[in-house]
């Protein structure tokens, strides 16, 4: 029973068990018993998997990934899985942010057995996506994850959230059908679906077959890239993430957009054409980081601003990730890049989760989402949110400083790791410019907490402030993520070395050295970025700056645009692989 082949399924099976339990509790019991069962289910689904993760750490750490075929079927028929350092790390990310987000939801809503159940199904799908090594199984995992997330977005009672979820569903379900076409192409020329088998079969192809392989790979990559929300495939994200309940936004931005990316890296490192696809995605990532931050700076809805920042930060991750795939993850430079990419994905999950729930609490209590109008949130929180001590504000500050890469918060460490690995390339300058924009837009966002001027009357709480809120759970989630942001920043060298060792164990090479984070150069660079950020903020705060921002904010966006950009993205990728490489 305790052999590792069974234990690695615990992060998938335990949340599913919890989901079933929560629904049964709702069906067969009433009142307090239902709630008790719901909490037990959440404990089983979100806390017990940690035991499995701790148990499997020594195995993956020593470079012995647990692989096999589910249900002991024959290879070629059954579904291959691979629980290695990558899967372990993605699980770590998912369960850390998932647990904190559920805790927040239990305090501030949405609540109830159905919510817990769907939340746990999503968590199970995340864990399954991380460890699958079969192309069709990846399709199933992504669809389950997607279906759960469409439902979770609609838990916000606003009709606009349903529209956002509907657009998200249409574009990502259509993209998954293109994924199936890609899968059809690969299956037709190779007759296998496991990554290992595909990688071997794709190495010796004739001319026309290799064209089929490239087009298929482009379709698969583009379909996954939609979930990751790289430019130009990002259109669904701002609405869905801004409209979702705050706890769900935290998981969507923190975990859901990164898991498909790291699952895709499994395919790309094995395929002969994968390096080219990774290279193009890396370039797209650098552009994404800069363009999205400019759009973020122009937003007036607080949560939409955060949603565009998620796109920008995923751009950082994709940029480093793509460069790593291009160079090859088993070289020392590629290993450094991949480690930096994951480190930023992990840290972004922590600080963006924190930002979403603190800003969410603030807009619930104050009833306003408008960055230009809302002021004096600290005093409103003290009055409406029973905060004698400004927990929410301080946690927001921790998140804002982390995303602006101020030491000793964790964002500083991961952005330093990325720029250290990318030094001397054009992407480096793009990411530095994006860093300035990030600092500027968080100065803009933090204005909601600035004290009121004397003549302005405090605003009445809005509709969202109604409803029962359990403050200890809410503050607990905020403090948990806030402390993690600081702790993981201080422990960055240790965490970097853990991540790099796990990736090195996957690639069968020795781990490289840990870059020095707190050097004088890095601190001076941070200072320069922050000062430039203040300057940019002053610039856009003027009349002319405001006009430019309004033009960016009110650019036309449409449903058709999502599909057009998908088609264009796929075609570009295929053309790039066919003609340029």
């Amino acid at each position, binding site marked *: 029973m305790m052999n590792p082949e069974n234990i690695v399924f615990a992060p998938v099976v335990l949340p599913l068990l919890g989901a079933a339990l929560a629904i049964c509790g709702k069906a067969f019991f009433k009142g307090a018993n239902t709630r008790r069962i719901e909490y037990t289910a959440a404990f089983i689904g979100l806390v017990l998997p940690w035991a499995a993760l701790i148990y499997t750490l020594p195995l993956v750490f020593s470079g012995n990934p647990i692989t096999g075929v589910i249900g002991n079927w024959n290879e070629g*028929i059954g579904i291959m899985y691979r629980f290695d350092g990558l899967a372990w790390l993605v699980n770590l990310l998912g369960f850390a942010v998932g647990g904190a987000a559920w805790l927040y939801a239990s305090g501030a809503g949405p609540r109830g057995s159905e919510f817990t159940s769907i939340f746990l199904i999503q968590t199970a799908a995340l864990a399954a996506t991380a460890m699958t090594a079969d192309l*069709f199984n990846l*399709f*199933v995992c992504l*669809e389950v994850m997607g*279906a759960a997330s*469409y*439902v979770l977005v*609609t838990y916000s009672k*606003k*009709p*606009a959230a*349903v*529209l956002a*979820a*509907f657009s998200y*569903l*249409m574009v990502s*379900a*259509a993209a998954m*059908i293109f994924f*199936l*076409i890609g899968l*059809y192409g690969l*299956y*037709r020329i190779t*007759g296998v*679906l496991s990554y290992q088998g595909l990688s071997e079969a794709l190495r010796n192809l004739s001319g026309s077959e290799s064209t089929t392989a490239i087009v298929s790979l482009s379709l698969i990559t583009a379909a996954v890239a939609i979930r990751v929300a790289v430019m130009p495939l990002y259109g669904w994200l701002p609405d869905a993430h801004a409209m979702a309940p705050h706890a769900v936004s935290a998981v969507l931005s923190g975990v859901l957009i990164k898991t498909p990316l790291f699952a895709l890296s499994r395919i790309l490192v094995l395929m002969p054409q994968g390096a080219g696809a990774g290279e193009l995605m890396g370039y797209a990532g650098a552009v994404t980081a800069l363009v999205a931050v400019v759009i973020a700076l122009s937003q007036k809805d607080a949560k939409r601003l955060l949603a565009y920042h998620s796109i920008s930060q995923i751009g950082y991750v994709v940029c480093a990730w793509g460069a790593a795939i291009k160079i090859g993850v088993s070289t020392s430079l590629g290993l450094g890049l991949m480690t930096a990419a994951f480190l930023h994905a992990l840290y972004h999950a922590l600080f963006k989760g924190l930002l979403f729930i603190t800003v969410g609490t603030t807009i619930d209590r104050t009833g306003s989402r408008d960055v230009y109008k809302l002021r004096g949130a600290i005093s409103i929180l003290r009055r409406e949110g029973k905060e004698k001590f400004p927990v929410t504000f301080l946690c927001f500050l921790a998140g804002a400083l982390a995303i602006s890469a101020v030491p000793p918060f964790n964002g500083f460490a991961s952005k330093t790791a990325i720029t250290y690995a990318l030094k001397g390339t054009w992407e480096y300058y793009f990411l530095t410019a994006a860093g300035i924009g990030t600092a500027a837009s968080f100065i803009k966002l933090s204005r909601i907490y600035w004290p009121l001027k004397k003549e302005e009357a405090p605003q009445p709480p809005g509709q969202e402030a109604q409803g029962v809120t359990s403050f200890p759970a809410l503050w607990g989630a905020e403090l948990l993520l806030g402390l993690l942001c600081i702790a993981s920043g201080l422990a960055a060298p240790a965490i970097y070395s853990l991540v790099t060792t796990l990736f090195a164990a996957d690639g069968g090479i020795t781990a490289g050295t840990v870059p020095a984070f707190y050097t004088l150069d890095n601190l001076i660079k941070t200072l320069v970025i922050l000062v430039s950020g203040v300057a940019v903020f002053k610039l856009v705060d003027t009349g002319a700056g405001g006009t430019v921002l309004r033009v960016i904010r009110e650019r036309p966006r449409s*449903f*058709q645009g999502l*599909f057009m950009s998908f088609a264009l993205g796929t075609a570009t990728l295929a053309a790039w692989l066919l003609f340029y490489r």
Partner: protein
Amino acid sequence: MIERILLLIFFLIGFYAIIARKNIIKKIFGLTIINSAIVILFILESSSTGTGAPIMGEGIRNIVDPLPQALMLTAIVIGVCITALALAMAFRLYKAAGTFSIEEIRKALHDES
């Protein structure tokens, strides 16, 4: 070859519905149509690999490749779930905005917020 051309037309009809029709119910139809087109494509492909049904027994030879059929059963189930979910959302949008037209829904919800 003729089957593939028909399938391509079938697929394009569905894709046209998703992109060009304003009615969200028709968009959902479009999604179902492209899903069906892919299912038929897989089945068509696997049917050319043999003649018999893939049920193993005494004296059965030359069966078709069973894997695509298993995959497509799964894909059909997922497609049904997604369609049901999309229709439920369409219902909620209709209740909120009183119309199925995506543009009018967008306008109605935009004015509200």
